[in-house]
């Protein structure tokens, strides 16, 4: 299910299958996380964890507020890692166990 329309810099194209996760807002990424089963979230986490340090080092060569399209997508994948990390590291669940009802918790942007 690799998606060729999702542009990534050379060296990161193997992550193109994560294109569906690279939503531009926290609201979107969080919505995706809480609608995805934990094993799939774990797969996303495992794919990204070892790549974060080289990704950030690579992205730091560009002006943060003016990233080219492929680099902007790569930055979004770094943010996807942050979004899935509590589920894997802390919650062991897509949503917060025993937490407030997600449909009543508004994430504005």
């Amino acid at each position: 299910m690799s998606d060729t329309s999702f542009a990534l810099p050379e060296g990161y194209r193997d992550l193109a299958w994560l294109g569906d996760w690279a939503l531009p807002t926290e609201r979107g990424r969080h919505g995706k996380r809480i609608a995805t089963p934990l094993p799939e979230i774990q797969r996303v986490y495992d794919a990204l964890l070892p790549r974060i340090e080289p990704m950030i080092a690579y992205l730091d060569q560009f002006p943060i507020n003016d990233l080219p399209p492929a680099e902007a997508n790569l930055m979004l994948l770094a943010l996807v890692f942050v979004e899935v990390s509590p589920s894997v590291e802390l919650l062991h669940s897509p949503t917060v166990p025993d937490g407030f009802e997600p449909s009543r918790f508004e994430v504005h942007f």
Partner: protein
Amino acid sequence: MTKPEERFHTKITTQMPDMGTAPLPIEPYISAEFFEKEREKIFRRAWLEVARGEELPNPGDYVVREIEVLKTAVLLVRGDDGVVRGFHNVCTHRGMAVAICDKGHAKGFICNFHGWTYDLEGRLKGMPGEEYFPNLDRADYGLRPLATDTWNGFVFVHWEPEPKMGLREFLGDMATQLDEYPFARFNHIARYSARVKANWKTFIDAFHEAYHVMMVHRHTVPDACAGQENPYGLLSSARIYGPHHSGSVWVNPAHTPTPSETLAWKYGMSFAPGDMVDLPGLNPDNSPNWWFDINVFFPNFFIDVGPGWYFTYNFWPVSVDESTWEMNIYQLDAESAGQKFAQEHTKVLLRDILYEDLSTLEFAQKAMGSGVLKHLPLSEMEIAVRHQLHTVQEWVNRP
């Protein structure tokens, strides 16, 4: 039970009001009559935080805030002179709203009902068919103002157009503690909100003690502010400033960071416990194990400040057993990809923590309303809860 031998106590560094030690009564949390008194004696007599000045940077920028407890909507607008003014969003002809969007930019306001026009300072400038209002003086029909003032970029309004006490005097030493904190250097990175079936004090009380952290936050940060040395998460210090108060949350030096926390702190600042970033206004009592400060502005506004981030809560009563809550998170500007990553970590971790904080409120409110509980026994660790109700009762009982 006797208290264990402790190496640790909350240091209370200001004069304490006499608040007693009895359990708290339930009635103020469930009585509709008490709620009406709170509306009149508290919310119509206190300065209320409604916006950050950056939300309306230029002359003509405006925002509208619906304030259900005041039964009004406030129109905040920056005038050509740079001053932010607050008005009831009500046309003085027959009451239509003069601004119908939540925010925007305008040269003035035109009422959509019959076309009366107002300038940015609220003056009535034009009325179609003015000659048919023979005895009306336009000067008497400007927009109805609320007192409006700004402290450190936070915009407050007061129901009374000429309150007896100015904003700075009302904020007192709570503001002094934070006068130097550089709020203007921060970016707004997140906004969350919810509407909950709980009294506004039930809601607030879940946020200004750390006794709950080990249990409520057992999935997210169970070891962050409690540990062997401080098993119940006692605050490292606390201060009472008239109606307001401030507590410093102790950090557990033995906290084990997760891989994502470690990465965030490698590149920037996270909400997860980590390095100290020295900013004026933080850690007022120089606690060696300091995480962040919970600063509570009476009656319903929090500014929690930490190393490189701060966040605010506004708790708004709707009725005796319903409230709305809004959280805004701010962090020092991200200048690199790594700092952007750390910013994301701050808000994502905080957001998931907040799902936990919101989980107890409706149960607690229901229990109080059922009559099962007759009073609430409070520990010394929950001093902020006692102080909040003490102040509420004091204000409600004023003439």
